[in-house]
């Protein structure tokens, strides 16, 4: 079963919910940190490294001896990543999305592909939690391929939790797509509500059931609760607005360790999550571009 923890707004507590939920579930849990631009789960778990792999996207390499500058490759490419210039073909690897089209349409078979590294996937273990984390190289723009690499390393057994990136665009979709349930974390403020509405719309487009966690409950107003009631959204958990929680988080402590009173809240969230029925039967499993390539 795959459960994604997401939010429209950043900084609402996705990582806090993901980590403390992982520690509250019974049995082994896989935790996929798909916020590859700002991966933070590892800061809260003392995990033993188990592996590290550089991942990338396949980009074209043109054999100048075979190429006759017909231009079929650049005609197909939607990303302006390959162009015929004068007597040669120029590749702009940082624009390439790795679709492989240029190699397929080249009538001279002059195009092969090499992996261009865009980040690393690191695996580690902390007790019952198996952490898989993506880390985008600084300066790289293309995020979804690395998220798909993280997703491709999840196993089918047990509970898989996904810490998603904020927002509602392609990287959030890449992290959330194909999960059985989405936990949307928000805060009771106008910004939190606005971005929750966007996230709910997105998750509904994806056709995935969702529930809401309200963090810093009591800090703002009641409009998030009113919205959830009007939309028939289940409020799974309310984490109180408490300076001790903020201070524990600031120091990299997990709430279930630092604040014993929080444990029952996450235990009930864990029980609720364990009762989620799987819906992913028949859904396409994420393919790693590396597998596609080989």
């Amino acid at each position: 079963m795959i459960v994604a923890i997401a939010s429209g707004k950043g900084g609402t507590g996705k990582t806090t919910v993901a980590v403390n939920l992982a520690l509250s579930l019974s049995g082994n849990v896989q935790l996929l940190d798909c916020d590859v631009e700002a991966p933070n789960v590892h800061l809260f778990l003392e995990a033993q490294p188990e592996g590290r792999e550089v991942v990338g996207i396949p980009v074209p390499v043109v054999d100048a001896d075979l190429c006759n500058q017909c231009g079929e490759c650049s005609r197909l490419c939607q990303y302006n990543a390959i162009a015929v210039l004068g007597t040669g073909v120029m590749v702009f690897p940082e624009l390439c999305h790795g679709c492989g089209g240029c190699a397929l349409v080249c009538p001279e078979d002059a195009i092969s592909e090499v992996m261009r590294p865009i980040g690393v996937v690191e695996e580690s273990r902390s007790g019952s939690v198996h952490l898989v984390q993506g880390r985008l190289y600084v300066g790289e723009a293309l995020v979804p391929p690395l998220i798909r690499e993280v997703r491709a390393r999840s196993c089918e057994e047990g509970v898989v939790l996904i810490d998603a990136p904020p927002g509602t665009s392609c990287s959030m979709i890449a992290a959330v797509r194909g999960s059985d349930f989405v936990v949307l974390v928000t805060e009771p403020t106008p910004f939190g509500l606005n971005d929750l509405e966007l996230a709910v719309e997105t998750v509904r487009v994806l056709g995935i059931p969702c529930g809401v966690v309200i963090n810093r409950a009591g800090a703002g107003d009641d409009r998030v609760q009113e919205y959830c009631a009007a939309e028939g959204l289940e409020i799974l958990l309310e984490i109180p607005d408490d300076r001790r929680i903020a201070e524990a988080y600031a120091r990299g402590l997990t709430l279930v360790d630092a604040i014993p009173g929080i444990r029952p809240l996450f235990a009930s969230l864990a029980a609720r999550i364990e009762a989620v029925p799987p819906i992913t039967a028949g859904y396409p499993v994420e393919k790693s571009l590396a597998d596609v390539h080989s």
Partner: protein
Amino acid sequence: MSTRESLSASLPVAGIQAVRAHVPELVVISGKGGTGKTSVVASFAVLAEDVVVADCDVDAADLHLVLAPEILETHSFVSGHEAVIRQGDCDASGTCHEVCRYGAVIAGEGSSAFVIDPLACEGCGVCVELCPSRAIDFPERDCGEWFLSTTRMGPLVHARLGIAAENSGKLVSIVRNEARNAAAGNGCSMILVDGPPGIGCPVIAAVTGAAGVLVVTEPTVSGAHDMDRVLELAAHFQIPAAVCVNRWDINPEGAESIEARARNHGAAIVGRIRYDAAVTRAQVEGRTVVELGGDAADDIRVVWDRVQRWMEGSTFPGEEF
């Protein structure tokens, strides 16, 4: 704080935008979300004399909630294409399914052998090209809207990325371009950009060619970790960076060490903002923090003063806060 060279003399060579940006842009970013970027930008917009504000957090835009814009112009954002199978012409060869690397071609229902999942389609066009019965259309994709608005603080350019849409970086570039046009048209002296979280495509689109970035961070392990990454990004694109620690009194030692880290990256430290319940209250009332007043408002005024002097390349009193 050492004397800084004039920022205009050290403009980054990060592409054509640097040449065109006659009006300096200050881009507020953070790496980690929720550190207070939007609250800080909204307050700066009140304190500044003549700025254009650009909300470049296009997939979770919030500035409009406190700036209450009156929309003057709405433009659609069309970008890229998406594959759509014409079921009547499909002979179920399965070629599209074989060539798609994004898992976007999925089994259809009833008489449809395959359908394209628009949420997974990258718009690469490979299936369109290779379909033996030419049964795949490739229409342009509607990816959202952008707006030119007026607010009580001056012009605002903002946008809404379509739900689950791609190309947020392109939309960010449009918002910045339109903000430059608005700044030139209104004789404004600065463009304030509310940036997106993270370090990927939309952030790169938001910072390249800017005169400076202000990193709003918080004294948490995540705040420090993600600040490191955005400061590396700023260095990568040769953009001068300043750092401001929000809610510093939640973890005073953490604030100390995060500022030390920032200095090691060569960033200027432009002040600290206290934790203040008035920040949330201002949001609930649809106002900016400085309009409501309080400890955080006082601190933001000091930060704004220092940011302006930093942008002008002059010095300000040291780092004893």
